[in-house]
């Protein structure tokens, strides 16, 4: 923890300042090159799905911002062909879920959505960008970008509340350097699927 953070804590404003710090959607593009390594070195291919998790606010302004995200994605779909839906998961998270077999377009669309929310002044409500990959047997692994930390971490669920840490460590060691990987594992927040084999967005 930095000195500045300690001072903020002493004066009791640490929580407020951390929670209102905006995320940077540009970091999402790190995934474009990491994807090639995932395929070439590790044998994982894109599952064609990605999710943007955010912490919704119950205000008309925020709802309006989400509607703008939807319209910008609809407009963008003409170029990229990316399908999307906005939905709530059963555990209180809100998602923009995107589908596109072309990984480049998928990253671009996630960035579109995140950037639009940030432009509307809600960059601090962005939590995670989640990219889904699968191996030859169809087993899912995820790379999760945490907007709050500005770093990526791997997530390999094996059920609804267990994870395969050895595969996660393997992914971490191969992709570290290419992606900014979160070094403090206590920040590797799991995003459990509702059903075994399901996606985090439920």
């Amino acid at each position, binding site marked *: 923890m930095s000195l500045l953070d300690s001072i903020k*804590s*002493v*004066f*009791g*404003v*640490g*929580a*407020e300042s*951390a*929670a*209102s*710090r905006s995320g940077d959607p540009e970091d999402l593009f790190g995934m474009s090159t990491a994807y090639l390594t995932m395929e070439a070195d590790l044998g994982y291919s894109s599952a064609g799905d990605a999710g943007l*998790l955010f*912490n*919704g*606010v*119950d*205000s008309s*302004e*925020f709802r309006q911002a989400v509607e703008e995200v939807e319209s910008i994605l609809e407009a963008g779909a003409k170029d990229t062909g990316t399908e999307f839906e906005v939905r709530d998961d*059963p*555990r*209180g*998270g809100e998602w923009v879920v995107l589908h596109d077999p072309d990984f480049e377009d998928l990253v671009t669309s996630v960035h579109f959505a995140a950037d639009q929310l940030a432009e509307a*002044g809600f960059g*601090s*409500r962005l*939590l*995670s960008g989640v990219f889904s990959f699968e191996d030859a047997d169809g087993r899912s692994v995820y790379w999760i970008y*945490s907007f*709050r*930390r500005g770093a990526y971490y791997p997530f390999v669920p094996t059920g*609804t*509340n267990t994870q395969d840490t050895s595969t996660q460590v393997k992914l971490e060691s191969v992709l570290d350097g290419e992606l900014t990987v979160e070094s*403090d594992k*206590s*920040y590797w*927040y*799991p995003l*459990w699927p509702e059903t075994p084999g399901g996606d985090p967005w439920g």
Partner: protein
Amino acid sequence: MGLLVALYIGFIGVLSVFTADLLLIVGVMSLFLGGQFFLSDRLALYSMGASEVDESEYPQLHATVSRLSQQADLPKPRVAVADSQVPNAFATGRSRDSSAVAVTTGLMRTLDEAELEGVLAHELAHIKNRDVVVMTIASFLSTIAFLVVRFGVFFGGGRNRNGQVLVAIVASLVVWVVSFFLIRALSRYREYAADRGGAVITGQPSALASALLKISGRMDQVPNDDLRDTSEMNAFFIIPIKAGVVGRLFSTHPSTDQRVERLRELESELETSG
């Protein structure tokens, strides 16, 4: 808080002038309080009858805590649940890595989803602001002063040594009384800060306000027989157990009305700043 620091520095100055056995007492007590500090998370959970719960038992609660922790840029703390009718919540732990949030089953029954998020975010703000550490340090010398008053009277009373002990006792008494009020003021300040931090984490000050009103309405009616020994824990409760009897100066928490009022101000602030 500056006042408290100045008071303590003065106090250490006065104490250091005096006899060695007094310093011995202080040394022993420091060890004792240090031990208490390092065990604080387990002690707090134990005294509330709260036990840690895992993902499979409370998936929803875990997911909410995880999401709010991420918003506050905190590692996810441990999650505990106490089986009690009294709707309450607290946070504990000396460091961010050893911290835990606990809620009662009564709280989960009483509040809706948004309100529960508000309360959890308030507790996470306490963790983020390191309030356990701040309050422990703030209380430390006050406790020492209190002990010097008690044991000083006890030991020094019989044979008088040129009045030095008496001066130490008087100084300690003054420090104890003054710091008592300053600590309570500091605690109230940090409650406001945690309300504000929590409201920014969820983005919904009104949900926390409504939770506070709901809990405080219930608190008066619920007997607290099973919570007799918990007054020292009050600093980290969402609403203190005994309210209204003691004056405002003695209170560790601001009144619910004042907290709700400030949250309303914050709500309109957020609405207008967009």
